[in-house]
């Protein structure tokens, strides 16, 4: 059923925008090529298809990253944005832009990956200090603190010169507009690798979710599962952030929605997140094009406005034990 939703979402994404040809015309143009309907063909093939593909890849990456990190930390509030992983990627990206190391989007992948990885480690280490269980409270606060420090440094570099500022401001808002296929190709291997690691870890993470001791007694390599999770989260978030900029809340919302449908079984949550997250991001991106007439809103802004209330609802409905 989710595949059908995704199909419809993709069709909507190809169709709706500043120009809205009929769905039929879009499909005909895409199939028959440039000769019959050059206008629609150019629009669809040059603008809409790359953008939709980027949204699918980024959505899938963020959704799975969210599912993984929520299962791993046993924290329903975990999200790359909330935990400061996006901030880590952002800092690394602006360092790369500021020092002239990244002439194009493709070059942003490595710094974004590195930043995401370091930030993930940092936030986990920070919340694992001291005694007692790692509670959602600890982890969220660690994320807030980390994001503050990293964000402060990012601001400093951002203001240092106009060129960096100009490039970074278009990246920092989180958008899939204006990306082309080569940008996608640069990050796709990382997304695929991250997804594969995530799928292979679904079963071990199920066991880890029951507690480390149980997992060990079931013969699961806890350390390997943990390292694998951190690695895949960094791969997925780093790749998604490199191409689209920091987009929050997708990783928070999608696993919750999926768990409402299929329960806590990680082997089902991960594959369904792969479908559900692109649905969400493709649809939000489509809406973001027409929400304000004559002007596109970056999808990162829209996800914040969808995700913020969802987060409020999560804590108000007491789905989250916050002591």
């Amino acid at each position, binding site marked *: 059923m989710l595949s059908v939703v995704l199909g419809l979402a993709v069709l909507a994404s190809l169709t709706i925008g500043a120009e809205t040809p009929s769905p039929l015309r879009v499909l005909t143009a895409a199939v028959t090529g440039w000769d019959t309907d050059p206008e629609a063909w150019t629009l669809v093939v040059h603008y809409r298809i790359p953008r939709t593909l980027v949204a699918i890849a980024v959505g899938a990456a963020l959704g799975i990253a969210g599912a993984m990190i929520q299962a791993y930390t046993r924290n329903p509030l975990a999200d790359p944005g909330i935990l400061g992983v996006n901030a880590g990627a952002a800092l690394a990206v602006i360092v790369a832009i500021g020092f002239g190391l990244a002439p194009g989007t493709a070059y942003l992948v490595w710094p974004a990956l590195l930043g995401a990885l370091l930030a993930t480690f940092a936030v986990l280490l920070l919340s694992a200090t001291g005694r007692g269980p790692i509670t959602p409270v600890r982890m969220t606060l660690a994320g807030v603190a980390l994001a503050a420090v990293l964000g402060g440094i990012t*601001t400093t570099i951002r*203001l240092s010169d106009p060129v960096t500022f100009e490039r970074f401001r278009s990246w920092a808002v989180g958008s899939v507009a204006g990306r082309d296929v080569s940008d996608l190709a640069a990050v796709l291997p990382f997304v695929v690798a991250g997804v594969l690691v995530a799928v292979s870890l679904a079963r071990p993470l199920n066991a880890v979710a029951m507690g480390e001791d149980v997992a060990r007694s079931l013969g699961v390599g806890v350390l390997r599962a943990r390292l694998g999770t951190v690695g895949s989260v960094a791969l997925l978030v780093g790749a998604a952030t490199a191409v689209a900029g920091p987009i929050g809340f997708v990783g928070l919302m999608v696993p919750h929605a999926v768990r409402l449908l299929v329960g806590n079984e990680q082997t089902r949550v991960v594959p369904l997140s792969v479908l559900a997250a692109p649905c969400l991001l493709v649809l939000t991106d489509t809406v973001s094009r027409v929400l304000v007439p004559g002007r596109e809103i970056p999808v990162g802004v829209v996800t914040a406005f969808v995700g913020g209330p969802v987060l409020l609802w999560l*804590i108000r409905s007491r789905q989250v034990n916050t002591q």
Partner: protein
Amino acid sequence: MDVPAAAARRRTLAPRVPVPGGRVLSGRVAVRSALVCAVLLLLTTAVTGVALGLGEIVYSPAEVLAALAGRASGAAELFVVGWRLPRAVAAVVFGAMLGVSGALFQTVTRNPLGSPDIIGFTAGSSLAGTAAILLVGSGFAVVAGGALAGGLAVAVVMVLLSRGGGVAGFRLVIAGIALNAMLLSTESWLVLIADLDAARAAALWGAGTLNGADFGYVGWAMALGGAAIVLTVLLLGQRLDLLDMGEDTSSALGGRPARTRLYAVGAGVLLVALVTAAAGPIAFVALAAPHIGRRLTAGTGNALIPAACSGAFLLAAADLAAQHLVPGRTYPVGVVTVVGGGLYLMTLIVRENRRATL
């Protein structure tokens, strides 16, 4: 996160001073609190003195004093009194305003993390201020009006959300994350669609800076803020002490908690918005200053004055660091406070983790 409650260690003096007419004037002075505030103010004065002396031309303390007294050469007077003094005074006053604001919010929310930065008032003021700069212009009245409106709007949202106890304790932090995300993403969008120069001006303001502060521009904010602090301490101080004891106790003692809370939130928003309007969002001073004040005074009593003193010291020190930590470069003070504040929050987390209280 409990505040160290060491009421037993609090010593008070209760002087009774006979005044003419056969009456006796009596009052209570918390000795430790007064001492701590005095020391903090001395430190603040010292930091301010250093800030006045340092710069491209360095003046000795004696020369600074001479310039302040109006007995120095024209150049020294221009540098020290004309350029450095407004900025140094602004740091002290704004720091005190942020400290008081933080203490108000932390008391009202009964939550040590309930500072305006975490709840989202700072982000609300910042967004509205940015919008005002980009859409209308960068005059003080415009930006101040915008920042105040933004802060109040967030206050209304927060009050609506907290009905029915929905955002008590840690939930407040999460609600703040949600609000912050929405506000900041909108702000980065506004910066994106504006033209480059206006966007850079807005972004520089958005980083929080005292660069180029002069009495003409920040004077209004300082005067209003100073008056607001005095009024808050005089009118709300005792009632906030009652509120600290809990809703029921406060009601029973005639503290009228609902009204106190309303006034306190209003004063807190006003203070944050004034600082934000004049200098841009300066994060985390409002979070850290009341904590430091309370730890130093080791009491749970009136937190406003120690918070004001610590805030003044923190922002004065942060602005000194912003100007002189890296030779030859001046950073926005907001960057220093956000990095320092984040590190401070980290140490808090580590400490609480060690006690396994989070």
